[in-house]
């Protein structure tokens, strides 16, 4: 309700109203700003009066619900994480099936060429795979701020994915479900060119999601491009990025979406001793752009990089609520993302410890269900 509304207009007993007027608090906004317990103590309200006031200030059904941890766990188990097509990367997210979890924001950062967009495209396709095979059985929205989404490349990945789906359904004796064209049509794509368009898009996203409940994934590639160095007012930029981040987080929660946001790297200048080092295990003087405010909004944060030479790439999870920091290797080929192809290379070696099965055995990809093994186990 409007904060400027005078307090005297609340429906309270005369006694209570007098107390409030004499206390000097004139508007509803003033009243809402104080914890009710302190207020009650200050004005010497009885518990009934305090409860009355509370009811008036925050009418029932204002949206605050509470759940037990048990209920939350049950709900979470029903949700569908989306596979990245690399069981190694899937495993660093933990959880029963591995893969990028819904209801939260996952950040993927990295230098140019590290594979962020490729992973984004792969996820946009995988979101459409049936749940039994590691997908979410829904469609995707891809918000492109950089122009790195190439439909022809997405088409390549879609064909490869469709071929595998066909194989699996042939083996299982069911009808093949998704053709390459269907997979492409299942990706809603839009391109934004300026911060204003980006703000508008995020705002509109809410109504789009209402109308299309089948959407299971939103990819923002990338969030940093529009905001780095363009804004002279850094505080305003921080507020803007934080507000947009929160909107995305809310949408993720409300609609059980997987939200993946790409971020660029920026050079570390005059790095103080500890803070930035946490993000710089590779010691190459770069850290994720947009700062701590944005960083704290993301639930999971991964950095993609490659050490040059060979076709092997790495993904490092450096923020996660459940899993320890760890690094895995993966591969990007003509057919998309996959685990490292040649098991005689270092395989999916883990650096820096971590809770992962399969450390000893190169061929064991960790928390992979048999369905996924069937799906991805032949690398040409």
């Amino acid at each position, binding site marked *: 309700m409007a904060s*400027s509304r005078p307090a005297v207009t609340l429906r309270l007993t005369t006694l209570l109203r007098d107390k409030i007027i004499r206390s000097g608090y004139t508007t509803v*906004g003033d009243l*809402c*700003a104080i914890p009710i317990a302190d207020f009650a103590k200050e004005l010497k309200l009885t518990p009934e009066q305090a409860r009355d006031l509370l009811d008036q200030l925050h009418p029932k059904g204002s949206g605050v619900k509470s759940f037990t941890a048990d209920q939350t766990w049950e709900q979470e188990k029903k949700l569908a994480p989306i596979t990245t097509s690399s069981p190694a990367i899937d495993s660093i997210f933990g959880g029963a099936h591995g893969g990028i979890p819904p209801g939260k924001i996952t950040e993927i950062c990295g*230098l*140019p*060429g590290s594979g962020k*967009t490729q992973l984004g495209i792969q996820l946009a396709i995988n979101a459409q795979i049936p749940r039994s095979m590691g997908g979410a059985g829904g469609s995707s929205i891809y918000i492109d701020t*950089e*122009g*790195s*989404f*190439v*439909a*022809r*490349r997405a*088409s390549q990945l879609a064909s490869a994915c469709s071929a595998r789906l066909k194989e699996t359904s042939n083996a299982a004796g069911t009808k093949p479900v998704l053709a390459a*064209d269907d997979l*492409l*049509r299942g*990706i*809603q*794509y*839009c*391109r*934004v*060119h*300026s*911060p*204003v*368009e980006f*703000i*508008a898009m995020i*705002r*509109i996203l809410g109504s789009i999601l209402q109308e299309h409940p089948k959407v299971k994934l939103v990819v923002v590639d990338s969030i940093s*491009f*529009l905001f*780095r*160095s*363009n804004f*002279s007012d850094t505080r*305003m930029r921080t*507020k*803007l990025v934080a*507000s947009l981040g929160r909107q995305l987080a809310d949408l993720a929660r409300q609609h059980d979406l997987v939200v993946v946001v790409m971020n660029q*790297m*920026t*050079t570390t200048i005059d790095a103080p001793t500890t803070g930035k080092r946490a993000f710089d295990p*590779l*010691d*190459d*003087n*770069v850290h994720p752009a947009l700062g701590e405010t944005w960083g704290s909004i993301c639930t999971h944060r991964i950095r993609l990089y490659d*050490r*040059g*030479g*060979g*076709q092997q790439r790495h993904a490092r999870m450096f923020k996660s609520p459940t899993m320890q920091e760890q690094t895995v290797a993966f591969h*990007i*080929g003509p057919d998309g993302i996959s685990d490292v192809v040649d098991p005689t290379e270092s395989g999916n070696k883990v650096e820096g410890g971590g809770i992962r099965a399969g450390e000893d055995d190169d061929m064991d990809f960790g928390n992979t269900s048999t369905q996924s093994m069937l799906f991805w186990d032949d690398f040409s």
Partner: protein
Amino acid sequence: MTSINVLGLPPSVRDALIKASLDTVEDLLLYTPPGLSNDVPSARFKRQQVSKGVSSSGYDRLMNLTPSEIAFAYDQAAAYIFETKIAYGSAHDLLQDESWLSLGDPVLDAAVGGKGIMTRAITEIAGESAVGKTQLCLQLCLTVQLPESMGGLDGSVVWMSTEGKFPYNRLESMITQFVAKHQEDVPDMDADIIRENIYYESMADQETQLHIFNYQLPILVHDTYLSQEDDDDKEEDHGDHTEEHSASSRKKPIKLIIIDSITNNFRSELTVGSSGLDQAGNQGAKAGFRSSILQRSADICEIGLRLRTLADQYGLAVICVNQVTDVIAAESTSHPPPLPFRPLPQTRDFTSTLHDTGKLKKPALGLVWENTINSRLVLQRTRLPDSYGTEGYAQTVSQETHRTLSVVFSPWSGHNRSNDPSQPGHCRYKIDETGVVGIPNTN
């Protein structure tokens, strides 16, 4: 900037917004502080408004709007921008819009992903001097004019130069070869038409550059599309295909922007603070340098955004030539240095006095620029050419010259990290009288 009058808001709301200086759709989306919806006015916002000339009372009027009214205005603004500016469709539809520009040689095209460079994107060509960057760009000036069936974009090109004289003589000899080569397939094409479809802009300094990017370039591009529409209309009216037809096909719409080079204006203007010694001494100079760097970053981002938007609007290909800079010792020990391109093993043996290619080099302008471009191609060589022709272009090529083109990163093709010639993303090339020619891998 669009006035909020287009939004159809209730008059009281609209007036309050205008009085608070939120009178454009863009400002409304950018500056509506989260605080307005949460009923806690941001003191900073209020100060800003006052400094913009908005009276304190104007701002207070804004505060009397209910959150739902403000949210309504905000939603209307978002819907307006979404409907008018944002193209929203499926990835399948996008396939139709994508096109590629051939580099003019099948081996080169194969190296960069199969069809050449992509439109609607910024591709950087980086390398040391005299390696062939400008040659490749000249070649693109010609291929862009070919019909789409032959790998071109049936368009014209804007050459934006910071390098001084345009290589006219070299262009002329390439044109002659080009026309001869395509005589059969494109009989319409002649040297005059080709020349007419290459526009030239000189950008002497940063100020000129900004002005051109912000005003002249968009207008120029737009004009070529307008006149294209006019010519199409004329064709429909008259319906005859003789003189008028060939006249109207002379001037093609701009499909390619070449910037040679993007580095110059940023490098030379990196001044150290303001002139004169101030008592603060070092502090002043350091602050000046730092703000200079920040300003440079901001300018780079701004130019990148402009180019990107233009490229997307009109389906253009954008090529930026970039120079290289040395990787300093401290960086080369960090692991790995921020994206240097790796010299070929052979270059370590090269011991010319002019080019010590034992040192690692990396493209200039840093990470900010790297984050702005879509794709990076790098040209390298191992030996100096035997002799230089006029205007600094090698007319004869040593037998030992070993030049390579590599893809460092690109969203539409794989890159070749190990410079293994058998993998895509990498090829050898030579420069002859026709231009840049790829050398197939003969393994």
